[in-house]
């Protein structure tokens, strides 16, 4: 992808949003900081200037990158440095065009679950600093009489590096985004990643990089800095205390997460213990939750992969989810061989491809309707407009949208459709009642016999009374007495006793409080929900260059109303700016008609800078992809 070269005027990007500035007393001579959305940091020595991520004045002699996320690279680019150093871990992000080149296709069936704040184009650096292993001495280097010690600090980002510099006897550590003053971080969703020693993939890796982050902080603490200068917010004047508090908070959140977790059902104690030990230490004392009461499925319910098949007395079937060709083939074989008379309907529980990939083909094969909650139907009917975990590209053309609490009578069954934002936001559930059996609530993937499926933050498990698991707890409590739960992956009915429900809910509420303490945001949902701002559609193909229509969807998770100021950009060219006031816990959709005369190859990537009046701002927070329609 080739982006136009823009005038590298310092502040082109960042001064477009108001920046709070203040003076910091007692800084070593030669060190200057200008606070803003991204702090501008400069050191002067022997008449030369060194900047960390963003300079105060244009064209510093040297710029050190702490990581290579989009906003950092845009600021570095605008600084127009003579020379740039970065961690060797940043290399793949600095070559971002390679990542973008396959992203149009790779966005489907995606379970990588990484924050994709990739730079918009390649960014050349002069030297990649090697990563020292634990047993090696740090590779110090000299710049204009100043000794610089790079400290390898992955965790908050995959490529984090800090720089320790002694200035007039003060040991100053430039920490980028790894930790903020007061022992906080910007968000939690950045930590989602695989947990390789525990053999947990990125999709199931809640706080997957937190153990590496703890190690990184411990490395910083070991270097005994006098102050920490982060790239956002104020200086930490008590690094030892702030690091200790940060680690303690992270551990409490992780301990809490494990105590309510669904994965204990699937994964053996070896894996779960490994995960606990990595973060909490060998003496973590965490006891895995016991499996709740579970019994075999009734004879009228069959388990086929991730499909549940409901069998009527007259031998017709109604199925929940068809996640792949294997399930579809099994269903076709059962019909061909007469085990079932036919399939009369399909309900899609949620939008992950292991539940939806073959729904369109099944609806065609069996000539049956597909039912879904509105939140699920939106994605099924136009998958290319969405970027969510595991969206299948297979569009389901005709979906019968069933509003929350709608009922459907089928054979001897009564179905009640429910909006059930548990494992993911775009998730439904089906209460199935028949005379000869206790009610069964088909909850998709939202609970297992040990706990809740909230391991992937990109699924958007919002911490709000009106949605997310808190609303699921209420729905389950209002079910008819003796109702069983069933998960699409598990061939058992199960239910928790009252004590287990209480312990899960109280732990979950405590986690929300812990996240509030740990993250520097006005509401914990901004810390767990990267998609509080997102473009819709995520991708679009246009037939000719010119005007493009797109929308930005904003959610104000805060409990007070606030203003959102949005700037849409193509690279560093500002295309449009709007401001909107959004009520507490409200949402808004901003529609844009944008003139885009110069579509890039293989696609243009428009981004949004967003400033909230609470003082929180993100540069290039989200993106939409636009390309010319491809010939078949």
């Amino acid at each position, binding site marked *: 992808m080739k982006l136009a070269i823009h005038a590298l005027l310092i502040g082109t990007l960042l001064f477009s949003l108001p920046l709070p500035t203040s003076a910091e007393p007692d800084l070593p001579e030669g060190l200057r900081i200008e606070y803003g959305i991204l702090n501008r940091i400069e050191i002067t020595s022997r008449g030369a200037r060194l900047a960390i991520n963003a300079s105060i004045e244009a064209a510093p002699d040297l710029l050190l990158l702490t990581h290579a996320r989009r906003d950092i690279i845009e600021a570095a680019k605008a600084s127009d440095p003579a020379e740039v150093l970065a961690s060797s871990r940043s290399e793949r992000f600095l070559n971002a065009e390679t990542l973008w080149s*396959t992203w149009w296709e790779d966005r489907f*069936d995606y379970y990588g679950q990484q924050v994709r704040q990739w730079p918009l184009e390649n960014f050349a650096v002069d030297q990649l600093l090697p990563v020292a292993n634990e047993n090696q001495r740090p590779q110090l280097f000299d710049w204009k009489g100043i000794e610089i010690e790079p400290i390898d600090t992955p965790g908050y980002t995959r490529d984090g590096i800090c720089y320790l510099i002694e200035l007039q006897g003060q040991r100053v550590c430039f920490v980028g985004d790894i930790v903020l003053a007061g022992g906080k971080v910007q968000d939690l969703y950045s930590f989602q990643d695989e947990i390789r020693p525990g053999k947990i*993939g990125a999709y199931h890796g809640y706080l997957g990089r937190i153990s590496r982050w703890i190690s990184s902080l411990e490395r910083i603490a070991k270097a005994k800095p006098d102050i920490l200068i982060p790239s956002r917010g104020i200086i930490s004047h008590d690094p030892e205390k702030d690091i200790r508090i940060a680690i303690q908070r992270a551990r409490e959140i992780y301990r809490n997460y494990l105590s309510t977790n669904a994965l204990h059902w699937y994964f053996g104690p070896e894996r779960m213990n490994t995960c606990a030990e990595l973060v909490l230490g060998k003496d973590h004392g965490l006891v895995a939750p016991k499996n709740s009461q579970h019994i075999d499925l009734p004879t009228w319910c069959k388990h086929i992969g991730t499909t549940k098949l409901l069998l009527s007395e007259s031998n017709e079937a109604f199925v929940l989810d068809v996640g792949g060709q294997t399930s579809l083939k099994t269903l076709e074989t059962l019909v061909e061989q007469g085990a079932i008379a036919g399939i009369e309907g399909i309900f899609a529980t949620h939008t992950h*491809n292991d539940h939806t990939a073959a729904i369109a083909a099944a609806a065609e094969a069996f000539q049956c309707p597909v039912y879904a909650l509105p939140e699920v139907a939106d994605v099924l009917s136009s998958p290319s407009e969405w970027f969510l975990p595991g969206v299948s590209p297979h569009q389901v053309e005709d979906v019968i949208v069933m509003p929350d609490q709608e009922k459907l009578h089928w054979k001897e069954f009564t179905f009640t459709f429910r909006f059930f934002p548990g494992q993911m936001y775009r998730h439904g559930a089906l209460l199935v009642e028949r005379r000869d059996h206790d009610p069964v609530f088909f909850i998709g993937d939202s609970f297992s016999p040990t706990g809740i499926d909230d391991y992937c933050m990109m699924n958007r498990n919002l911490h709000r009374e009106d949605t997310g698991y808190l609303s699921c707890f209420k729905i389950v409590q209002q079910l008819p007495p003796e109702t069983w739960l069933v998960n699409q992956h598990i061939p058992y009915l199960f239910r928790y006793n009252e004590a287990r429900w209480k312990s899960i809910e109280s732990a979950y509420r405590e986690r929300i409080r812990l996240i509030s303490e740990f993250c520097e945001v006005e509401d914990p949902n901004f810390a767990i929900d990267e998609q509080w701002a997102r473009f819709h559609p995520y991708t679009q193909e246009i037939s000719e260059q010119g005007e493009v229509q797109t929308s930005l969807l904003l959610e104000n998770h805060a409990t007070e109303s606030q203003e959102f100021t949005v700037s849409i950009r193509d690279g560093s060219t500002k295309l449009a700016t709007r401001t909107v006031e959004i009520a507490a816990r409200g949402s808004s959709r901003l529609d844009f008609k944008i003139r885009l005369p110069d579509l890039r190859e293989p696609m243009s990537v428009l981004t949004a800078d967003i400033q909230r009046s609470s003082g929180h701002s993100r540069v290039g927070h989200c993106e939409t992809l636009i390309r010319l329609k491809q010939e078949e």
Partner: protein
Amino acid sequence: MKSNRIRSRTQQGRVSQLAIRLAPVSLAFALVLPSFSPESLQGHDSLYQYLEVSQDSAGRRTLAISIHLADFASEFGIDSNRSDLAWWSKLDPRDQDRVRREAGDFLHSSFLFSDPLFAKSLAASLLGAEINDENEPARPGCVLVIAEIPPRLEKLEWVYQSDQKRLMVILTRPGQFPQVLDRAAGERVILPLPVTTP
């Protein structure tokens, strides 16, 4: 000769086909490395260990065990973006052998079959696999080990020794719903087998 079809997505997002041919011996096992194709990718398939026994219309019974690459002792494949057919095709032959070896190690340490001959045949047959142009959908990100079950066996009995994750046993017979057993680590499983004549 029996073959299995698997699919992989090309750079353009289309579907192409690659395959691994099974060794032409009735008791032989083969390794299949399927990709994360749009058709077969299943986000949570890694949640269970799968053992499937199926009887076809001719009465032949086969056993298939899928071993998720992420479960290996080494670091092969935990990243779903890496452990697909493209990844496999770029592996050095020595690393391919290593994957086979690790699959074998995992299999033999996790499934303690009580029938000594069956266990022995399993041990002897993990070596032969070659890439062909035909295949069959299988579990993504997994090594799939397939064997024919000798007609003399009336049941399969084993202890599931793995402490990694639960075991899903699926028994498929013509004209019947799949029979499913969900078992925790350490459990002994006795699976009566369908008769070999249909």
